[in-house]
């Protein structure tokens, strides 16, 4: 049969159509894919129980080596990331930051995928990957510069193989693809991971990244955090069928993973990275998760979504889930949690202090780093501006 079709959801009526959207009267050539709700790769239930099924068997070997200590480490990463994140939200409310994009609820997706990486792998984040940055060893206070308005990023991407935050939706997926093409040219066995959102999947750039990576067989993992919302728009405004299915149409595998299950995210990302390392090309991972907070501190989600939705997702909290598992399995004791609580407070304090003492940039920085090799116009304007500033000092 030559027809590809997905009946996973009913055709959505155009917002404007007046015609009956009734089902086809004839047998359509639909086939292949099942109409059932797509399954998630899940290794840990919301209650904290380990799952081993035929469905996730493919991925289990990727976390066979995970020890109790590793689990505590993942838990610690998530807790500290959340603590950092909430501190940043407070700092924004206190006027220390101009804006903050919270990752609340997405800790498992970010820590699971971030901890799957090797040092020589390279990360292309959006503006929300604070947890991934944490895994890469980027000092969290470094992330705050752009939100405070003292720089546009400004950390050295190469010191932690963690690229700058990218705000123009989707662009970084092409950078990641190009970088991965370079990795392949170098004959290295590193991999590249590109983060993006459910909203971003609509951008031309992201789909071009799919094409380029497929054609050049680039060692890149496309990691989409489907957090159900792009600001005020639910995923139905971006896609008609689950995103992970898009990969097949570009010629590489796509998988949907429980984005609130840190173990599953770790396993699936490792699996995808291994494919890349082995020269099998790109993979799309869709981490099904939820943006628990507002889009950013400027946003007001009460205008567009219901409390019940959030409440339902709270029951799937990534941190509570692992905590339940650690407690039930005895892999962590009360002392661990108490110590972590302290560490957490210390982190909060450190971040708060670092932000408050973060100096404003020098005015003349406007003219710095516009070009690597200099530019006559910039030189001219810099000199004029300096003279202009000096004219005030003379005046006083």
């Amino acid at each position, binding site marked *: 049969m030559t027809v590809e079709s997905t009946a996973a959801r009913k055709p959505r009526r155009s*917002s*404007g159509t007046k015609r009956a959207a009734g089902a086809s009267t004839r047998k359509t050539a639909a086939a292949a894919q099942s109409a059932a709700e797509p399954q998630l790769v899940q290794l840990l239930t919301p209650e904290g129980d380990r799952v081993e099924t035929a469905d996730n068997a493919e991925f289990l070997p990727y976390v066979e080596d995970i020890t109790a200590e590793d689990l505590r480490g993942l838990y610690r990463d998530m807790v500290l990331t959340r603590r950092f994140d909430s501190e940043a939200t407070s700092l924004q409310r206190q006027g220390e930051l*101009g*804006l903050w994009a919270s990752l609340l609820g997405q800790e498992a997706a970010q820590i699971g995928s971030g901890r799957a990486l090797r040092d020589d792998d390279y990360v292309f984040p959006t*503006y929300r990957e604070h947890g991934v940055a944490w895994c890469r060893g980027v000092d969290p206070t470094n992330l705050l*510069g*752009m*939100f*405070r*308005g*003292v*720089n*546009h990023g400004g950390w050295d991407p190469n010191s932690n193989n963690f690229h700058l935050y990218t*705000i*123009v*939706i989707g662009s970084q997926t092409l950078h990641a693809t190009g970088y991965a093409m370079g990795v392949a040219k170098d004959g290295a066995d590193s991999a590249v991971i590109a983060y993006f959102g459910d*909203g*971003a999947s*609509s*951008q*031309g*750039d992201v789909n071009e990244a799919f094409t380029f990576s497929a054609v050049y067989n680039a060692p890149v993992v496309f990691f989409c955090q489907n957090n159900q919302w*792009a*600001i*005020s*728009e639910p995923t139905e*405004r*971006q896609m008609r069928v689950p995103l992970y299915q898009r990969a097949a149409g570009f010629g590489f595998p796509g998988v949907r993973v429980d984005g609130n299950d840190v173990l599953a995210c770790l396993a699936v990302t490792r699996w995808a990275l291994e494919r890349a390392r082995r020269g099998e090309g790109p993979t799309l991972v869709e981490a099904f998760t939820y943006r628990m907070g507002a889009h950013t501190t*400027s*946003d007001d989600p009460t*205008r*567009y979504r219901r409390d019940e939705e959030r409440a339902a997702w709270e029951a799937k909290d990534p941190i509570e889930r692992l905590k339940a598992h650690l407690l039930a399995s005895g892999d962590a004791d009360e002392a661990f949690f108490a110590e972590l609580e302290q560490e957490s407070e210390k982190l909060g304090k450190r971040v708060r202090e670092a932000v408050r003492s973060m100096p*404003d*940039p020098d*005015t003349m*920085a*406007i*003219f710095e780093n*516009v070009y690597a090799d200099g*530019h006559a*116009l*910039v030189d001219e*304007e810099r000199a004029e*501006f300096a003279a*202009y500033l000096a*004219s*005030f000092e003379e005046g006083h």
Partner: protein
Amino acid sequence: MAAEKMSIAKALNESLRKALETDPKVLIMGEDVGKLGGVFRITDGLQKDFGEDRVIDTPLAESGIVGTAIGLALRGYRPVVEIQFDGFVFPAYDQIVTQLAKMHARALGKVKMPVVVRIPYGGAIGAVEHHSESPEALFAHVAGLKVVSPSTASDAYWMLQQAIQSDDPVIFFEPKRRYWDKGEVDVEAIPDALHTSRVAKAGTDITLAAYGPMVKVCLEAAAAAAEEGKSVEVVDLRSMSPVDFDGLQRSVEKTRRLVVVHEAPVFLGVGSEIAARITERCFYHLEAPVLRVGGYHAPYPPARLEEEYLPGLDRVLDAVDRSLAY
């Protein structure tokens, strides 16, 4: 209904509402324009009142937004597209420049492109990268587009009405830092034509020309200069394509001096064309070269530097003094 005091944001919202009421072919499209009412609430309440059929939340893809708006225009609709921030119009730049701008000419006039692209633009709101830019020159250079920017609530209301009624594509730049500034709007007035300039304050010694967010700065500069005994005329250009050179020429022939002010970088900004053309038109009248005050040839800086980067009162007055010193 008499004149009413309202913010520029409210005036834009009322203008869109009026357009939706008046013409069933008018559509609003963009990211988050529906339930949210847009990140600046310019479309607030419109989806609720006019339905998802006319106020359309789009996928997150600017080329797709403008490209489908073109198709809707070909079908007889009049789409008003919102680009969320200045820095995010570029994915749509190809559709705007190669399709929207050229379709009417390509069809030898047989199709029209009544599409409005609304872009909140400019800085001074403490935002992160890509949220504070002034890319108007990149559109004004392109034949087939019209480019305007209001500076008052009344102009916001009326110019948007006129842009929507225009059969040409209009890039409508909204001075986002002025969204909450209030002014009188008389919805029964007879507005000025869309592409004429307006003398915002009369004066005799020098002309300041500006549009959008910088008009207010120029008016403040004029007031400050008045205290020093200088009579400054402020011309609100309102339209960057076409520019009302006749109006501006009248002012410059009187004052013999001109300073153009915009947030956009000076190099190849709209001021460069104004300087070049006014110099040509008024060569024997000008006592000083046309001076320009604007952004620098650098990416828009982080928020903590924007006050220094943006033309403010002092830099405008400095240029006034430099011009008068010739």
